[in-house]
């Protein structure tokens, strides 16, 4: 396992110096700072920030992850010429990108909160914790999907297209389709199907987890109440398990593809 640690540490050091990653952290820093300064109380600012996180983290992670993996192709070849097991190398690469991106977003949003409010308020602290968890989970998921895309798609341009298409599908198109279904079949009891639809999309899942934290579920109407009931019981476990499955599945597929790939 020392190979995993070595690759991971080098990559982390490489990425932390990358100007893109710094820009990414600065973006969240500016957003959090601005919202805290002009966006009313802490929980309101946090809610707006959550919306930004849910939108930007999957996009940047999947695009940056894909591009980074394509760029490190020759480097991967170089490492594979060393006495290194492929599976270990993949885990090292994956953890390096994931942790660097996670650090970027969490440092970006945490610093303004620490400076302005501190974390005295336990409700705010809890909500911030959820936001940090959601940001980390989305980073893990979309980096893993980026790995799958970059490994399965030889053509870089097509891979980048696939990354953006995946983001569009999960972040925008999916919600639209669910809304159309709800509008069309509004007369039927849809709670369970909508619940299932939410579990099947990591961005929706993250959004629901976030919203429930702010007791804004009532704003989501009848279905919101259903979710609240669902997520306050065993549902929370189901939701977290679904998120973990969303991490595990692409990591597994990516690792398999990596072990079989021709470099």
């Amino acid at each position: 396992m020392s190979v995993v640690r070595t690759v991971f540490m080098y990559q982390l050091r490489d990425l932390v110096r990358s100007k893109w990653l710094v820009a990414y952290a600065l973006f969240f820093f500016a957003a959090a700072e601005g919202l805290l300064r002009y966006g009313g109380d802490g929980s309101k600012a946090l809610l707006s920030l959550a919306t930004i996180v849910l939108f930007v983290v999957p996009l940047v992670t999947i695009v940056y992850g894909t591009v980074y993996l394509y760029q490190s192709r020759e480097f991967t070849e170089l490492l594979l010429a060393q006495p290194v097991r492929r599976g270990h190398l993949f885990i090292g690469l994956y953890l390096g990108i994931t942790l660097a991106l996670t650090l970027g977003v969490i440092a970006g949003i945490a610093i303004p909160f620490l400076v302005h409010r501190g974390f005295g308020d336990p409700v705010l602290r809890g909500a911030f914790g959820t936001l940090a968890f959601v940001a980390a989970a989305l980073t893990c998921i979309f980096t893993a999907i980026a790995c799958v895309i970059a490994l399965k798609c030889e053509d870089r341009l097509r891979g980048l297209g696939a990354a953006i298409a995946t983001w569009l599908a999960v972040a925008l198109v999916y919600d639209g389709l669910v809304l159309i279904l709800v509008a069309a079949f509004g007369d039927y009891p849809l709670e369970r199907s909508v619940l299932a639809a939410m579990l099947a999309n990591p961005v929706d899942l993250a959004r629901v987890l976030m919203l429930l934290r702010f007791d804004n579920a009532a704003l989501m109407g009848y279905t919101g109440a259903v979710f609240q009931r669902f997520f306050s019981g065993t549902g929370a476990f189901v939701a977290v398990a679904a998120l973990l499955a969303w991490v595990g599945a692409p990591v597994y597929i990516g690792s398999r593809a990596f072990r079989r790939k021709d470099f």
Partner: protein
Amino acid sequence: MITIDRLTKRFGEVTVLKSLSLAVADGRVTAIVGPNAAGKTTLMKSIVGLTRPDSGSIMVDRVRVNGDERYRAGLGYMPQIARFPDNMTASELLALARDLRSGGAYPMTLDEELVERFDIASFARKPLRTLSGGTRQKVNAALAFLFSPSLLMLDEPTAGLDPVASSALKDKILKARAEHRTVLVTSHVMSELEELADDVVLLVDGEVRFSGSIHSLKGSTRQTTLERAVANMLSSRPVAA
């Protein structure tokens, strides 16, 4: 000793290596030559384990190349293109390679002759991205020789190197042979191979057209230089070696 038995590799529709069998002798420099797209790099990469064969087998010192990474501890590979992560420096890269091996508890006899001759210390702290292609190629070469490997795989090693660096590298290759190490090298510069190699493997369309000593290739084609001998071979019918 490398023994390749009926190795076949396809990329989509294209069959790059066609049931290729080959034996590479220990302690000699073997040149792999052939026209573009003959499968030279794919053959090299298959031996390193970067590409996976569709069928057939490769044995390096009686260990089958099939995903077990340990044989690579004794292998130095210099790929054709030297590209590294944007912000990494040469000293970090060399340290990384060292760390990867120390974790696996491989014996480490460091050979820093090329590191010194290429004066890598003078640019070791600069990001590799800011260095010229030839300078990166020096790092690439120094890395391949760093762990005193018993098998060297060099893909177009002198491409992009200036004459001083190029002759330093050639000296090093000849020295490796004197130390009874095995070297596999590809190049398009025949005069260079003539200077370095004992044996030559001529690949055409993923098949071995000729395998034997340079001397016997010249003899059988009645040519005086390797370049003419290879050209002669390519324009004629296959000859049994």
